[in-house]
Structure formats: structure tokens, C-alpha cells
């Protein structure tokens, strides 16, 4: 059994390289921790920072538990409204990752389908879609996201705004990142469609949709996986940035970016913990995802942009 495992690990290059790359393993572990912390936040967090009833304004700006002015109820201290910072970070991570994953899911489904079709079908569809992609690519993601966010603010009624903010954010970030997926999928598809196994399918008279989905798609998953990882980091970063700028998630549901924004206001007066801990969390998470992305890029080595 064990010998079998070793043989698999040696033959499977991906697994082999992963098992011999400490940094990648560590990054995977951190990512996993962040993910489970986010998923289990309602059960591991000591308090619910969204529940106004449980927050006491008298507890505001308490220092971390180990410092002199600390309170052992609040491990990492509290923010300006008396929310437990540890709980707020857990919930904030949950929100950040949720928005990140949702928007990446949205962007990848949209981008891959468009890219696959553009690459395989070519012609006018390809020309139009890629022209749009080029224009959008020259508009940086953050600008696109800000713009969509701004439009949503104008269109949506004010009272609905907070409730829909997560959806708006997801769409805004997703729409600003789909181009990466589309371009990658298209470039890989162009390589694959010239391979003879695709011609063999075409000669048989197979339906183009079936060729795309069952033959080409599995072959272009490598580069897409890389973009998926790299862009997850970008999406989390975008969400944090938007929230920091105050145009992201609603204020009563703080994400990491919101916490950092609140923290900056208190940084100069000595309450350093509100800005330090969420920043550390955010950076750790993004570094871990980026290390994984780099690892995947090296292993799957797609020469594509």
C-alpha cells in the first residue's frame, strides 16, 4: 500500500513537486486554515460582531488581552464600537473570502465559456469579444469595480443598497476579472484546437459544443487553475481595497478592509491593534494564495497571458 503510494507520488509530477516543496505545503496549510476559520466563524468566534445586542459601547478600544490594559474576554482587543476584534476578524475573513470566491466563480464561468467559444469558433464572435476584452483590460480591475459599484449606488434604492451590496460587490469584482479567464481560455483553446485529436473529432462530425466541453475543456484546465488561484488573491485584494475606500461592504458587516479603515483612524492615538491584526490577517491570506499560485504556475507552466 505504502509502496504503491510512493510510486504514484513519483509518477505524478504534480504530487511529487508538491511533496518536495515545503513553502508550497506551508502556504496550502495557511490557506486551509484561513478557509476553515472563515467557514466555521459562527462556531469558533467568541461573539457575533454583527449582533448589535451583544456589543457594549463601554467595551470599546480595549487593548489585546496580554497587554496591561487588556481584558481577557477580548483576545485581540476591541474596536471603536466595542466589537471583539478576534471575532470581527474571523467574520471579516469569512466575508472577504465569500466575496472573493463568489466573484471568482462568476468571473471564471463567464470568462472560460466566452474564451472557449471565441477560441474555438473564431470569426466575428471572436473578434468582437476580444475587442471588448482588450478595451476592458486597459481599464484596470479596480476602476471597473469602482465604476460598477458607483452605478449600482445610483440605480439601487438607498434602503436596498446595504442588502444588495454583497451581490453588487461580487458582480463588480467578477466583471472586472473575467477578461483574464477569457484570454487564458482563448489562448489555450487556440493551441488545442489545432491539435489533431480535435480534428479527429471534427472529421467524425461531432457537435462543436461536445468537442469544446468534453475534449478541449479538460485540456485547458491547467492554465485556468493558475489564473483561478492568482485571481482569487486579486479578488480578495480588490474587496479589501473597495471596503477600505468605503464603497464596499456595508459598515455594520465589517470585512477586513473595513476594519483596517476604522483602524487607521485610531492608529495615531495609540490604538494600534485595530489596524495591525486585520492587516496581518489579510496579508497572510493573500501571500499564502499567491505562493500557491506561483507554485501552480511553475508546475503547470502555461506560457500564456
Amino acid at each position: 500500500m505504502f509502496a504503491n503510494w510512493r510510486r504514484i507520488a513519483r509518477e505524478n509530477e504534480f504530487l511529487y513537486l508538491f511533496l518536495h516543496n515545503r513553502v508550497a505545503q506551508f502556504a496550502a496549510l495557511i490557506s486551509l486554515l484561513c478557509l476553515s476559520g472563515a467557514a466555521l466563524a459562527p462556531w469558533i468566534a467568541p461573539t457575533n460582531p454583527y449582533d448589535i445586542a451583544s456589543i457594549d459601547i463601554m467595551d470599546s478600544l480595549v487593548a489585546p488581552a496580554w497587554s496591561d490594559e487588556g481584558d481577557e474576554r477580548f483576545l485581540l482587543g476591541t474596536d471603536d464600537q466595542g466589537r471583539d476584534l478576534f471575532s470581527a476578524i474571523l467574520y471579516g475573513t469569512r466575508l472577504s473570502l465569500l466575496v472573493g470566491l463568489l466573484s471568482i466563480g462568476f468571473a471564471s464561468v463567464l470568462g472560460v465559456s466566452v474564451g472557449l467559444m471565441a477560441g474555438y469558433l473564431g470569426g466575428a464572435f471572436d473578434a468582437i469579444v476580444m475587442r471588448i476584452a482588450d478595451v476592458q483590460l486597459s481599464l484596470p480591475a479596480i476602476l471597473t469595480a469602482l465604476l460598477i459599484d458607483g452605478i449600482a449606488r445610483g440605480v439601487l434604492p438607498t434602503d436596498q443598497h446595504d442588502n444588495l451590496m454583497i451581490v453588487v460587490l461580487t458582480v463588480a469584482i467578477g466583471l472586472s476579472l473575467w477578461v483574464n479567464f477569457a484570454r487564458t481560455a482563448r489562448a489555450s483553446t487556440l493551441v488545442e484546437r489545432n491539435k489533431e485529436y480535435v480534428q479527429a473529432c471534427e472529421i467524425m462530425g461531432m457537435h462543436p459544443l461536445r468537442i469544446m466541453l468534453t475534449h478541449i475543456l479538460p485540456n485547458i484546465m491547467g492554465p485556468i487553475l493558475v489564473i483561478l488561484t492568482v485571481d482569487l488573491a486579486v479578488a480578495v485584494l480588490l474587496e479589501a481595497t473597495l471596503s477600505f475606500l468605503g464603497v464596499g461592504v456595508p459598515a455594520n458587516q465589517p470585512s477586513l478592509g473595513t476594519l483596517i479603515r476604522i483602524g487607521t483612524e485610531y492608529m495615531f492615538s495609540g490604538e494600534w491593534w485595530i489596524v495591525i491584526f486585520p492587516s496581518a490577517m489579510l496579508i497572510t491570506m493573500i501571500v499564502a494564495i499567491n505562493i500557491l499560485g506561483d507554485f501552480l504556475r511553475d508546475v503547470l507552466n502555461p506560457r500564456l497571458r
Partner: protein
Amino acid sequence: MLSFIFRRLLQSVFVLLAVSLIAFSLFRFVGDPVAQMVGQETSIEDQEKLRERLGLNDPITTQYARFVGNLSKGEFGFSYRTRQPVSEMIISRMAATLELGTVSLLISLLVGIPAGIYTALKRGGVLANVLLVTTLIGISVPTFVIGIFLIYLFGVELGWLPTFGRGETVPIGWWQTSFLTLDGWRSLLLPAITLGVFQLTLTMRLVRAEMQDVLKTDYIKFAMARGINYRSLYLNHAFRNTLVPVITIIGLQLGGIIAFSIVTESVFQWPGMGLLFLDSIRYVDIPVMSVYLVVIALMFVAINLLVDILYFAIDPRVRLHSAHE
């Protein structure tokens, strides 16, 4: 050459038209322009008169044509929030953003390109590895966090540099420059570094990746086999070939710098266009938003044109290809 540029210009016009269409739809359909312009107590009749006077009852195509016409004449309308002409607001802030962007672009290129070449050549070297780890952190730390910590360190703890605003500026015509005063430079330093770091790491990683690819090609191996000295091999042969893709990305990066200046300007309260745009989003100030969009698109189009011309200068294949057509 001329026909090549002409074709690019034609494309640019299409891009600008597309963006102006978006800007127009923003202006026309997001919120009610009349409701924004008048007070609560204005009667329905007066509102209707205003609507007629503004031409909002004309066919959409006429309105769009008028919108584009006004744009090309530099008449950008009035802000809903401050009631000032948008053109004045933008122009008064353009210098701040452009100066900030230029300095951070220079930082990112002057440091990023040599560092990229170095790390591509010295694979596995200690300094190269340190640089690589640094870039990983560089692309992972959000711009605003970098800004906050620079403010904390140099502004608050050490007290060396100002932490907000442009400091003292000198007017050159309508252009307010901070390049001519020491205070201006001191104020510029932290925001420029903040904005430059992300682009710097991107440049470096990109130059490194492209350079490594070029070093694997047959023509580099052949040049190696001919004993061409390493200096010329790396700079004249390899780096010149990496320039083609690198220029594309630098063009895109310029866009990135303009976009991320929004964040930097917010952190440092830098009175530039980005801050203006951010405020316009917060207060749903549609005219400012749409004009900002058009101005940015103009800048991007100019950048892309510049990139194309650079291509032309570097790659003989592009040159000859266009000569054939």
C-alpha cells in the same frame, strides 16, 4: 508607418466612442438629472421646463450626439454636488495625479527592470532569492496597507515627512507643480513610493519571466555558441527581445497606476482626480463620474498609441509587416 498609426487612431476613436456611450448612459439613465439639479420645492412644471431646456425630451440619438459634441468642445457640465463646472474641477486636480503617477512610474521602471534582469540571470543566488520573496510580498500587500505603514513609520514615529496633501506648489500657467519646491518633493515621496511598490514588483516579475523565456531560445544559445560576450548577450540580444512583451505590460501598468492612484490619493488625502472620483462615487455625483471616465479613456488611448509607436521602433517584424499592407 503613417497608415499603421492611422489605423490605430481609427481604433482609438472607436474606443473613445464606446466609452463616451457608457459615460452618456451613466449621465442619462443613472438617477434623474433634473431631480438632482433642482431643489425639493420646485414644481413639476418648472422641472418639465428645465427638462425641455436641457433637451432631455429629444430623441436619445440627438442627446448622445450633443453629449459627444459638448465633450469634444470641453464642456463637461456641472457637478451635482458642488455646482462647479466639471472641467474646472478635473483640470485643477489633473496636475496632482499626473505628477504622482509619473514619479511612481519612474520608480517602478528604474528599480523594477534592473531587478528583473538581475533575478533572471542569477537564478538561485541569495540576493535574487531575497528579491523574489520580496516581490511576492510586494504583490500581496494591498496598496493602502503600504501607505498606512509608511505614514505611521515616516510620518508619525520618525516625523520626517508630511503625511497628507501636496505641500507647497508653484503654478505654471494652470498647472500647479510640486516639483519646484522642497516641500512639494517631501510630500510627494511617500505617496509615490506607495503607488510605485506594487507596479515595481509587477515589472520585476514580468521582466524576469520574459527574460528567462528569451534566454531559453535558440538564438541566445547560438549567440552563446559564438562566444558573444555576456554583457552584449544579455543586454543587446536578450533584453531587447524581452522589451516587446514588457512594453505591452508597461502600457497596461500605466493604466494601473492611474487606477491605483485612487487608493493612494485616498490614503494620503492627495488632491488629485482619483480622490475626486471617489467622492463622486460616494455622493453619486454622476457628471463627475462620467467625465472622469472619459478623461481616463483619453489617457489610456494616448498610452496605447505610444506603446504601438514604441513597438514600431523596436520590432522590425511589425515595421515590415505594416509596410507590406
